[in-house]
């Protein structure tokens, strides 16, 4: 179990760092959602079920949806992602 936690933690670390270097904002948001999902799994493995529920619903759904809606509003105002 400890090995699984270490591997998942390393994946989370790599994901969190790669968010900074993504070229496209959409990709960065999706990667951020993956990091949130893995952290929910980590909370489950560590038997913190109430935190895991909150993380899964707020971190992996609500935050991502809010980011995408904010991005949509920006694009309506003429913001364009540099390719």
């Amino acid at each position, binding site marked *: 179990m400890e090995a699984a936690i270490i591997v998942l933690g390393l994946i989370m670390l790599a994901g969190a760092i790669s968010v900074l270097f993504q070229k496209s904002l959409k990709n960065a948001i999706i990667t951020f959602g*993956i990091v949130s999902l893995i952290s929910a799994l980590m909370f489950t493995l560590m038997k913190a079920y109430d935190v895991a529920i*909150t993380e899964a*619903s707020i971190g992996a759904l609500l935050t991502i*949806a809010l980011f995408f809606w904010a991005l949509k509003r920006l694009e309506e105002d003429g913001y364009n992602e540099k390719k």
Partner: protein
Amino acid sequence: MKRNEPLINLFGLILIILLAVLVYLALTDSGQGLTMLSADLEQRVSYSYLLKNVTAAGQTENQHGQAEVILGREDYENGAVNIVTAIVTDYRMLDTFGEILVLFAASAGVGLLMVERKRGKAKEASEIVKTAVPIIILFTLITGFYIISHGHLTPGGGFPGGAVIASAFILQFLAFQKSSRNKVFKILESLAGIGLLAMGLIGLYLEGSLFANFLPNGSLGATISAAGIMIIYALIGIKVAAELSSISADFIGE
């Protein structure tokens, strides 16, 4: 679109692994079903939630020398088996009230700053999403209500349950691009906030301190026990769900 494909595949793979691990954990759970009174409590997480150790009176010691609370005890402290719930909604309720005020401030700020305007044309969701989302929403709502109503027994409570219910509404917004019930959310939110304050003030009037527990507790571990905590958690759940839903409705716009 093609550039995102590996990322989407990775996302799907991780989702499947997550589900597989959850199924494995559920299958290998050492508990004996869902009944609180017949399970081998020492093998379960809730055992550590059982060791309420706030007042020394009324506790016995088990073989490890730890304080132990006996299930089925009548009218014990605030009646919650879950120690986290006992702290959050009774011993430190004023802090929780502050947290709720913070969330209210966030929701009010979003409502104030988001200028109302016409939405641009959005891409319609695919047929699969439109068909699956109503079914998923049903199960999500049931899970949310379960988490809220069993807050005094199992991990979870008002905040996680409210967030789960709000995520059901957000799924609906995502699939059908509609957010017409914003006014209902705001009214529900203010009613729940007034109810919470009223609970605090009644406690102050009857017991002499803000948010004091004044309702009967019932027997420890029963499904319907700790009436005060159940009411407070129901109000918190309604408030959190309405706040998060109204934030996302403000983001979507008219």
